[in-house]
């Protein structure tokens, strides 16, 4: 769509700017303040330069948390994106079944995140949880997510798949519904196989929504906190201490404001860089055929 040049449009954006700036810029200034000073009391503060940054960047705990975070986010994308596509393809497209499937599919997304954690904490417990009991009993595997790091990882990953694959599925479903029937008719006249219908009609049409799905899933898994915190508290040991959990441990747990602020800034810069890359890819693809 052609847009008109009009700088008065700023007046319409102003309320948004004010309200978001209040919540985003003032806290960020506080964080920067802490990151470069050692604050012992209201009147008792020292400029420490980049000391906190040097401290946290050479800290093994942060590097390990970052590595864990990257592995986790990659795993999340590798499972949830293909699964979401398959689910979208299989969901009924019209009638009462479609409505019911949509409502059911969206249900996990509307559950408070700590309740999601609670549900899985209960469900996976060996003594009172169905899944934990089933894996330990009839399946005969030794499974305990509070003691074994691998089991903890699997539990968190399965929980995230349960919680967020519906988002990917719903996005893809919306993309699929936007394809006119004529495309499918043309394909069947040409005798196209199921795979080539997917590869040459459905996948290109889903490109725009898939990018949104990848962006949202990557970013949200990168900042995950509540769900694993409720289930494992970051343990056993540090096995499921992701970046946000690590940060909260230092900021609220130990009240080390300087290092916490320095980590916050590093964390924020990583997010900023990743968002920038995704945003530009989205703009480029978005201006192609799939958008609007």
């Amino acid at each position: 769509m052609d847009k008109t040049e009009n700088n008065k449009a700023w007046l319409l954006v102003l309320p948004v700017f004010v309200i978001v700036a209040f919540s985003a810029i003032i806290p960020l200034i506080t964080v920067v303040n802490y990151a470069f000073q050692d604050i012992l009391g209201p009147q008792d503060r020292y400029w420490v330069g980049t000391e906190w940054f040097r401290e946290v960047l050479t800290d093994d705990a942060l590097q390990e948390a970052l590595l864990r975070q990257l592995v986790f986010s990659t795993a999340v994308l590798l499972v949830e994106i293909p699964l979401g596509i398959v689910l979208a393809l299989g969901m009924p497209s019209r009638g009462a079944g479609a409505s019911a499937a949509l409502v059911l599919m969206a249900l996990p997304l509307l559950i408070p995140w700590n309740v999601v954690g609670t549900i899985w904490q209960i469900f996976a417990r060996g003594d009172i949880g169905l899944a934990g009991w089933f894996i330990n009993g009839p399946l005969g595997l030794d499974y305990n997510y509070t003691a074994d790091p691998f089991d903890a990882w699997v539990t968190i990953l399965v929980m995230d798949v349960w919680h967020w694959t519906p988002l990917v599925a719903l996005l893809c479903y919306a993309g699929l519904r936007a394809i006119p029937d004529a495309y499918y008719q043309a394909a069947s006249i040409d005798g196209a196989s199921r795979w080539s219908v997917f590869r040459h009609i459905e996948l290109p049409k889903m490109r725009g929504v898939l990018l949104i799905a990848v962006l949202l899933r990557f970013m949200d898994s990168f900042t995950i906190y509540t769900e694993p915190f409720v289930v494992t508290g970051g343990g056993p040991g540090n096995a499921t201490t992701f970046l946000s959990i690590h940060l909260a441990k230092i900021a609220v747990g130990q009240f080390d404001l300087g290092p916490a602020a320095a980590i916050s800034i590093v964390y924020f810069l990583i997010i900023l860089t990743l968002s920038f890359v995704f945003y530009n890819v989205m703009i480029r693809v978005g201006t192609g055929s799939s958008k609007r």
Partner: protein
Amino acid sequence: MSRSRVVVIVWFVFLLLPLYWLFNMSLKTNAEILSGLTLVPQNPTLANYRTIFTDPSWYSGYINSLTYVGLNTLISLSVALPAAYAFSRYRFIGDKHMFFWLLTNRMAPAAVFLLPFFQLYQTIGLFDTHIAVALAHCLFNVPLAVWILEGFMSGVPKEIDETAYIDGYGFPRFFLTIFVPLIRSGIGVTAFFCFMFSWVELLLARTLTTVNAKPIAATMTRTVSAAGMDWATLAAAGVLTIVPGALVIWFVRNYIAKGFALGRV
């Protein structure tokens, strides 16, 4: 039956099992929960739900949560509507940067804002109020609302605006009486998303409240006591947090798919 249909059925079983288990536990007594696994409650009881509905410290949590979620939805929509219109119709200095900056706030980790928010709201005297949580949640809901609304608004042909202006409509009158009704499904979907993300968030909500505005999800941590976990009440409270979401989904079910695509299909 196609293979992907089988995957969908298996998926729904997987989706419902943990939820069924929670519901199952909410109808049991703690003694039954701890005495061994039963697939259906042996002596179904509503006592856990009765506890929640009669104890003010429990049910006020629901009222608090719904209050700040409602406030947040209202604020987010009213500031995002004009801004989304500006982004969908006009080019202006710094528009792309502004849009990107908004998006980064949607992506920012809540953990980063934990401490600064705590201090900010203490300083301005809004700590432990509903409006504090509603404002804090604007950090991610306003950008999201702008993003979704912009998608829906771009689907409305520009000729409608031009015709209205030629007919002598001023911007406020055109916007409120013609444009807003045109995109009401988009507004409904956006309200749904604001509700959703404010309802599910806990980290900030818990940090900014102690008693008066404490969200239900934070109240749930009370079930840990010296006598051990009160699993049954915890399960009942969990089930009750799912209900508002389920109701809201039902209302927007016909627009939900388009909404999840942020209006961009």
